[in-house]
């Protein structure tokens, strides 16, 4: 070990202080000769001059020994490497066009791949910031009996799984809400997660201040108003709202008119279930009141035992689910069979990342294609260059340069080019990422953490080395057989096919370039088409010039909801520039909201399909007029519309069709059902009796609206007008989004709307104010992001590809000037020559195009999940892109072909 250190030190010294070491060496040799001189003078009695001469002769050439000694120092390879690199830089500087194009091309390709890699690495590959995060899973259900592809857990299934599962180490329920935090003057909307103490066990988190709440803290009920529910604060909320005051522990905050006591502060950046969460509120559920399938909307996070896979856990839950029969009041054999629950166990990371993960991998694939095209281009450049250097190489060989020296020179050149390319790529990737993080065009978890890190540098360096070695050996490949000087000195003049092997390599590279570019173009064309389909889809509402304002009402004013909403709407109506006003509990494309089971009241026999939950939406009259959603028939609930119907509701066309199988829906009645399929009953305080909830009467039918996402066809929805006095209090929303159709020229509508809300009641809180168009745009962010980046990638590949094809065609023509000259001299017409050159290009390009189509079709399966109403094998797209690609490729070889056609035979035959 010490010896290794000793040597390392010596080598480093020899390398870093080369001058000093060399100087020392020369000094030592000088002393040697001097000593010998004096010795000779003494022993042989010759003059100093003669002695010195003899000493030098005895010593031999000083230079040669210096080289030998340097060899013995063991740093020779490195020194040579530095020398080669210097030489490479010099030769490249003499050829700036080659170097510039190669570096630029590589830089773009490497930059694109490195940028996407950095995102993927941070977002998809790095573990989530929890202890042993790879063992965390989200537990969900598939409920085919309810027509639900994915739903959450009920309390019953939660307790059942938690008691009986051996593969899950822990399981915790949580739900999210947005509530009002009372402030000095006005209220503030805060993001809350409700969860029991087990959540923090499962996630393995400890507070930075105070303590977590524990089961023993769940002492009372909040009915007497004295018990304060324990809460935890997020670090960021604690800093921003309370200035990081450590006296926060034990303080009481009033949230939704209920006092809560702060128990602790969680670590900075703790992002469960999302980074916006500001408060975790203690929430314990009683197994005695649990049900099997009334509400399947609890989210649950679990921790797998060591060595357990998600498949194993899902299989276990599936196995223990049937034993739930009889445990809960609605867990009857029929109900279990009817609902048909199927447990799903998904890695938490997959859930956090969601659909974006797929998009990122597609993008990574696309950018890899771009890099390959770039590499093919640079490979071409190197090959062509090495052809042109045949003479230089021959001279070097003749002067005694060994093959290893040539190899080192080529390697050094490709290393210099790829290092510069990598540096440019890193710079491009860094700039791109900064823009991406700054403008965050797409909803990506952990995007703010994305940067160029050591991983990115390592990744780039690895690709760079690979590229450098490949190019270096490509250059060398050309010269493996050029050991004889003669043909090279003659200028490599030869007939076509004289070196078909080399031609084949070049042609293969061009074909590969065409293939990869085509595949990338097909992918981006599909994404672009898909994106436009998505934006042009008939949404069922007009988002232009609609402003949305989220307004929250304190819980204690629940009795006045209807009046408050109406007053706000009336005030907003008076704002100059506002043409129509309405409100809805959940805006399209924003998600969430209540879902309940429904049944036609006059039908006791259900349709063969089990009821699926229906989205309940509350609205303030004027909503459909503002959104310009057509009310197909019945009452449209414009502002001021009156009806004599009891509990009037509107239903979507799809829901009307399902409930009444095509019969007329107006005037029919529907009932809300509980989980057992029985009509909901309520305790009536006036008569002190439990009475069934009165049925809703259908007053009108509304066109389907793309509500959950632009991709999903309009679903089943029931709209309940918030009009006096017929709204059931238990499901009345405490939050409404007001929609204002505005004159685009009118100034200050948003500020005026905010004032209108506080004018009605200062305890009302205003959350987000957004345009409806922004909401629609945000919902297609991933598609747009993907389409734009793939399009840029495709464009860059196309540009590189055509430059590459042009280069090769031009080179081929140049190389065959002599042959073409002979042909012309023998009477070939210019058109024939041109046709010949084009034909040769066309064969290569078409081969590449076919390969590209094959790659595109094979790869399109990956796109399938993310495409909207576009088939991955859409013939129009495939044909169009192929035509474009082939056309551009042929156009690129047209110029060289023309040049070939105009060859002057005399000139050509004279050409060396």
């Amino acid at each position, binding site marked *: 070990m010490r010896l290794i250190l000793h*040597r390392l030190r*010596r080598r480093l010294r020899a390398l870093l202080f080369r001058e000093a070491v060399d100087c020392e060496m020369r000094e030592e*040799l000088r*002393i*040697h000769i001097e000593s010998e001189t*004096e010795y000779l003078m003494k022993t042989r009695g010759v003059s100093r001059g003669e002695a010195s001469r003899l000493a030098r002769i005895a010593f031999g050439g000083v230079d040669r*020994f210096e080289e*030998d000694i340097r060899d*013995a120092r*063991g740093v020779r390879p490195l020194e040579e490497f530095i020398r080669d690199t210097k030489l490479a830089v010099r030769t490249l500087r003499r050829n700036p066009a080659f170097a510039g194009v190669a570096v630029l091309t590589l830089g773009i390709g490497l930059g694109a791949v490195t940028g996407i890699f950095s995102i993927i690495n941070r977002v998809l590959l790095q573990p989530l910031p929890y202890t042993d995060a790879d063992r965390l899973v989200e537990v969900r259900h598939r409920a085919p009996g309810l027509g639900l592809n994915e739903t959450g857990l009920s309390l019953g299934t939660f307790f059942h799984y938690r008691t009986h599962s051996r593969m899950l180490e822990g399981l915790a329920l949580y739900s999210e809400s947005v509530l009002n935090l009372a402030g000095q003057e006005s209220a503030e909307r805060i993001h809350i997660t409700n969860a029991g103490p087990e959540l923090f066990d499962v996630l393995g988190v400890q507070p930075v201040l105070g303590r977590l709440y524990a089961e023993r803290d769940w002492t009372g009920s909040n009915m007497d108003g004295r018990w304060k529910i324990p809460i935890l604060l997020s670090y960021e909320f604690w800093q921003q709202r309370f200035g990081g005051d450590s006296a926060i522990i034990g303080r009481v905050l009033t949230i939704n008119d209920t006092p809560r006591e702060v128990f602790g502060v969680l670590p900075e950046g703790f992002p469960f279930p999302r980074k916006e969460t500001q408060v975790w509120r203690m929430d314990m559920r009683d197994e005695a009141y649990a049900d099997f399938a009334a509400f399947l909307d609890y989210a649950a996070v679990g921790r797998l035992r060591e060595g357990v896979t998600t498949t194993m856990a899902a299989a276990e839950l599936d196995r223990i689910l049937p034993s739930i029969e009889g445990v809960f009041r609605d867990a009857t054999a029929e109900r279990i069979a009817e609902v048909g629950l199927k447990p799903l166990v998904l890695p938490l990371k997959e859930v956090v990342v969601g659909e974006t993960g797929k998009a990122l991998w597609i993008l990574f694939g696309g950018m890899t294609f771009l890099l390959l095209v770039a590499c093919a281009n640079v490979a071409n450049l190197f090959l062509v260059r090495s052809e042109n250097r045949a003479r230089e190489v021959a001279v070097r060989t003749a002067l005694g340069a060994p093959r290893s020296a040539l190899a080192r020179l080529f390697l050094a050149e490709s290393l210099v080019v790829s290092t510069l390319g990598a540096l440019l790529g890193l710079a491009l990737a860094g700039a791109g990422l900064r823009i991406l993080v700054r403008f965050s065009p797409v909803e990506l978890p952990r995007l703010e953490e994305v940067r160029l890190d050591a991983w990115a540098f390592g990744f780039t360096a690895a690709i760079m080395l690979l590229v450098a070695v490949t190019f270096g050996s490509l250059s060398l490949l050309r010269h493996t057989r050029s050991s004889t000087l003669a043909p090279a000195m003659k200028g490599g003049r030869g007939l076509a096919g004289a070196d078909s092997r080399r031609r084949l390599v070049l042609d293969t590279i061009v074909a590969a370039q065409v293939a990869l570019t085509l595949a990338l173009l097909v992918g981006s064309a599909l994404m672009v088409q898909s994106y436009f389909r998505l934006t042009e889809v008939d949404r069922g509402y007009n988002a232009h010039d609609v402003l949305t304002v989220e307004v929250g009402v304190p819980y204690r004013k629940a009795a006045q909801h209807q009046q408050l909403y109406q007053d706000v709407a009336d005030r907003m109506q008076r704002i100059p520039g506002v043409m129509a006003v309405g409100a809805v509990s959940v805006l399209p494309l924003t998600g969430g909201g209540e879902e309940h089971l429904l049944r036609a009241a006059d039908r006791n026999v259900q349709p063969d399909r089990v009821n699926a939950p229906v989205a309940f939406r509350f609205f303030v009259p004027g909503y459909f007029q503002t959104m310009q959603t057509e009310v197909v028939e019945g009452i449209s609930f414009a502002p001021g519309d009156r009806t004599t119907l009891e509990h009037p509701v509107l239903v979507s066309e799809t829901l009307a069709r399902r409930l009444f199988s095509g019969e007329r829906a107006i005037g029919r009645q529907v009932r809300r059902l509980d989980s057992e399929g029985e009509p909901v009953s309520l305790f009536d305080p006036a008569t002190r009796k439990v009475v069934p909830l009165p049925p809703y009467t259908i007053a009108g039918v509304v066109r389907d609206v793309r509500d959950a996402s632009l991709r999903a066809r309009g679903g089943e929805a029931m709209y309940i007008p918030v009009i006096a006095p017929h709204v059931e209090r238990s499901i009345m929303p405490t939050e409404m989004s007001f929609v204002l159709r505005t004159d685009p020229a009118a100034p200050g509508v948003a500020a005026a709307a905010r004032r209108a809300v506080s004018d009605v009641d200062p305890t009302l809180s205003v959350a987000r104010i957004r345009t409806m168009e922004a909401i629609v745009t945000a919902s297609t962010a991933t598609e747009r992001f993907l389409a734009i980046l793939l399009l840029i990638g495709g464009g860059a590949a196309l540009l590189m590809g055509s430059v590459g094809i042009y280069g090769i065609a031009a080179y081929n023509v140049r190389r065959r000037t002599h042959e073409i000259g002979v042909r012309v001299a023998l009477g070939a017409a210019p058109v024939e020559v041109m046709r010949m050159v084009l034909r040769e290009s066309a064969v290569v390009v078409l081969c590449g195009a076919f390969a590209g189509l094959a790659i595109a079709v094979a790869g399109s399966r990956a796109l399938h999940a993310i495409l909207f109403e576009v088939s991955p094998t859409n013939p129009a797209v495939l044909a169009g892109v192929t035509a474009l690609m082939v056309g551009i490729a042929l156009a690129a070889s047209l110029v060289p072909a023309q040049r070939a056609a105009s060859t002057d035979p005399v000139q050509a035959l004279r050409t060396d």
Partner: protein
Amino acid sequence: MNPRADLLQGTLDLLILKTLALGPLHGWGIAKQIENLSREVLSIGQGSLYPALYRLEDRGLIASTWGTSSEGRRVKLYRLTASGKKGLAAEQTNWRLFAGAVEHVLAAT
């Protein structure tokens, strides 16, 4: 021309180590010392002496410092290190074994 034997490959290291075992010397001194001790039979080509010195130093068997020679000249003095002493002993044994073996072969009748 003096009757001089070519140095057997590898024996140079042994000779240098042995010479330095007698005391620190500079490069020229080592060459001269070997010549003297071998009664002018062995002549060290300078071309092999200095690379050998660098190699030995690299292996940690000898170390060098700039000092003053007996003639008062500023020279690079080489000396044997502790591991050099061990190396010398091992090389010496090897050499004797080898020389003896060669002698046996030559003594065959």
